[in-house]
C-alpha cells in the first residue's frame, strides 16, 4: 500500500485537463471527419486522396493535439495520484463527450442515449474502484 498523501491542487487541475482534453479531442476529430464526408478507401489512389484530406484538416490536427494533451496529463497525474483514484475520475469523459457533442456540434442526444451514457459512467467508475493490481507488489 502506498502511504496516504494529500492530493494537491495540481492533481485536481490535471484531472480537469484530462476530463476536458480527451472528450474535446474526440469531438474535434468528429467535427473534422464530418466535414470531410464519405470516405473512399479503394482503389489505392483514393485511399491516398482520403488520407491527404484527413491530414489537411485543421480540426483533425487540433483533435490530435488535444488527445496528446490528455495523454500527457494522464501520465503526469498517474505520477501524483494512485491509478484507483484517477481511473474513476476518467469515467466522467463519456458524459463530457456527449455534452460537448451536443453543445459544439449540435448533435441530438436521445434520453435513452443519455441514460446509457450515465450507466456507462457508473460502470467505468465501478471498474475503477476495484484494485488495479491483482498481484502483490514486490
Amino acid at each position, binding site marked *: 500500500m502506498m502511504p496516504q498523501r494529500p492530493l494537491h491542487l495540481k492533481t485536481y487541475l490535471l484531472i480537469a485537463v484530462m476530463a476536458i482534453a480527451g*472528450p474535446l479531442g*474526440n*469531438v474535434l*476529430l*468528429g467535427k473534422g*471527419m*464530418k466535414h*470531410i*464526408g*464519405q*470516405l473512399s478507401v479503394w482503389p489505392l489512389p483514393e485511399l491516398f486522396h482520403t488520407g491527404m484530406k*484527413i491530414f489537411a484538416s485543421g480540426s*483533425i490536427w487540433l483533435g490530435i493535439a488535444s488527445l496528446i494533451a490528455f495523454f500527457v496529463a494522464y501520465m503526469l497525474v498517474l*505520477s501524483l495520484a494512485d491509478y484507483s483514484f484517477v481511473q474513476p475520475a476518467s469515467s466522467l*469523459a*463519456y458524459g463530457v*463527450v*456527449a455534452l*460537448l*457533442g*451536443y453543445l459544439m*456540434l449540435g*448533435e*441530438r*442526444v*436521445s*434520453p*435513452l*442515449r*443519455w*441514460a*446509457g*451514457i*450515465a*450507466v*456507462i*459512467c*457508473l*460502470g*467505468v*467508475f*465501478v*471498474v*475503477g*474502484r*476495484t*484494485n488495479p493490481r*491483482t498481484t502483490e507488489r514486490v
Partner: protein
Amino acid sequence: MPHYVLFALIVVAGTGGELCVSRAMQVVGEVPSFHPADIAKVIARALRIPWMWLGVGMMATAFFALLGALSIYNVSFVVPVTALSYVAGAFGGVAFLRERVSPHRWLGVVLVAIGVTLVILGKN
C-alpha cells in the same frame, strides 16, 4: 465495409494494442523517474520489444477505424460505444495476461455492457 466492423476494430485492435503495450512494459519494467534521459532510455528499451511494435500497429489501426466511424456517426454515439473496450479488456486480461478479475470488476463490466446496449437502442 459493414459499419459494425469499424466498431469491432476500434474495440478489438484498441484493446489488443493496449494489452500488447502492457506486456511490452512488463518486460521493460518500472520507469525509474520522469527525467527526460530516463524516459528516452525506457522508450529505446521498449522499441526493441516486438510486442511494442505489434501494440503500436494495432493502436494505429484502431485510431483510423475511429476516424472512419466518426465520418459516419455522431461522436456522442461513437465514443460511448467504444466503452466496450472495458468488456474486451476484462476478457483479454484474463486470457492474455492471466489477471484475476474480481466480482466487483465484473459488475462494472456488466454495467458498461448494459450502458452501451442502451446507447445503441437510443440511436434515434
